[in-house]
């Protein structure tokens, strides 16, 4: 074949030298590398006792957010469901009644909100689509389960703990330092 460019650089395929053919020195050299690795720092993490630090933008399990007063942020606009390439999100909207202002931030809210974790591919597009800072992906993984039904998460499974009544659990879910 003629060369197509001037940038080609043939790889070296020298035949084996005598030393390499004898092989024994190579075995010893290989062994010494293996032995030296025994004394190196271990790169593994002993999960689950230890966990490695995640990046702040890690895409794990979903959380439905509340504002500082403990009201749900979601307004059931449906953008997350539209943006979801796996069609994992289902919701039903309802109108906020009088006297429910302490529960929902907006006039419309999601009465039912489900994410099917068996469909979800953790792409993070729902988080990106949400115009109300209502859904985001946290650092936790989806736990395993024996029943399919249990992996369709309802709103109560997804909602972040109320910052008013359970500030510590809220902070933990948000990935913040615990508030004293």
């Amino acid at each position, binding site marked *: 074949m003629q*060369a197509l460019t001037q940038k080609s650089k043939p790889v070296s395929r020298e035949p084996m030298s005598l030393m390499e053919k004898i092989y024994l020195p190579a075995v010893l050299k290989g062994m010494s590398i293996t032995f030296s690795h025994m004394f190196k720092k271990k790169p593994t993490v002993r999960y689950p006792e230890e966990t490695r630090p995640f990046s702040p933008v890690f*895409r794990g399990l979903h959380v439905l957010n509340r504002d500082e007063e403990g009201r749900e942020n979601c307004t059931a606009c449906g953008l997350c469901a539209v943006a979801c390439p796996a069609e994992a999100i289902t919701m039903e909207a309802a109108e906020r009644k009088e006297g429910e202002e302490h529960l929902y931030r907006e006039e419309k809210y999601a009465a039912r909100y489900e994410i099917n974790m068996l469909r979800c591919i953790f792409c993070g597009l729902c988080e990106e*689509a949400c115009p109300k800072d209502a859904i985001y992906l946290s650092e936790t993984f989806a736990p395993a389960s024996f029943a399919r039904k249990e992996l369709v998460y309802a709103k109560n499974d997804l909602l972040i703990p109320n910052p008013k009544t359970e500030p510590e659990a809220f902070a933990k879910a948000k990935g913040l330092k615990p508030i004293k």
Partner: protein
Amino acid sequence: MQEHQHNIKLPDGSIERQTTTLNLGPTHPATHGVFQNILEMDGERIVSAESTVGYIHRAFEKLAERRPLYQITPLTDRLNYCSSPINNMGWHMTCEKLLGVQTPKRVDYLRVIIMELARVADHVICNSVIGVDTGALSVFLYVMQYRELIYEIYEEICGSRLTTNIGRIGGFERNFNATTWEKLERFLKEFPKALKEFENLLMRNRIFMDRTIGAGPISAERALNYGFTGPNLRASGVDYDVRIHTPYSSYQDFNFNIPVGTTGDVYDRWLVRNQEMWESLEIIKQAYQKIQEFKGEEAEVYHANVPEYYLPKKEDVYTKMEALIWHFKIIMGETAIPAGEVYHSVEGGNGELGFYMISDGGRSPYRLHFRRPCFIYYQAYAELVKGAMLADAVAVMSSLNLIAGEMDA
């Protein structure tokens, strides 16, 4: 084989010639993926092979016809999942070609860094797995921590390690943070040592050389006829590289060589990949330097200025009406998409990964085709292993870097 057996005087009533049918795959641990090969075996030798495709066909091309452009990115993650960022970037560039979006230089260089990291991650897996298949497990473990480091770099940018969904049309979802650069520097500092050690353990190792030299060779002509690209074609001696022949993402600004082999056997493919990792490291270094040279506002650019396709900032969405409207339009896939036909290809982890899209101006592509290099290599597999030993067939498969997810789309 047949004549040979005819010379032997067999006892009466014995079967003259007997071959065994062996199912290699679809769930054989040595195939690293769902590949099925029905092998006709004569003892340890392969008489003929019949390859099957489609065990993890997920109809991506059909699915893509129902998705707005940005939702197709997670589908491309799952093609060659060893180097998903390259697929993602390739897809974004295809969209940009159709939409006529010009990306700033800094975005191009950032993309080059990510794509070359992905290439290293891909080759490191492929080459160490060839080692595993020829009986050397420890090399695989030694380089794995640097693949982890690459994955952590992805994670800092996009939030995920394997199925990255990294980047957006027009650029990146967020700028590289300090940790990313720190990790990249650590990678550039430590990886060459590990790669050198990796080389020392395999390259001139007699067992490895005996096992791989002459296994599954393919001539340049046959390889071209099949439509080989990438390292597998280069191992046969053709210096074809998409990064040089049709530069994308400003690859013309970088200085690097194309390693080529001669015989196209497993050893050549290994050598070519190995050398490519060194070249990739060079490219990353050059890109890193170029990025350092940006000053002032330019040094913060991480996406093109295309409000029609790139989502506005979240703070603006929460507070400004205009931004909110764009946000809704983009997410719903209601921004104008021109009708047209584009083909864009990138040098993927294992060959030329092409995207051929026809758009009729609707919210999703009218038709989208992925040119998947693995699918093409797999067609040649039967020819490559004919007459080889069974153990070589496994090494040949891993040296072609066949990824089932990409092959079946």
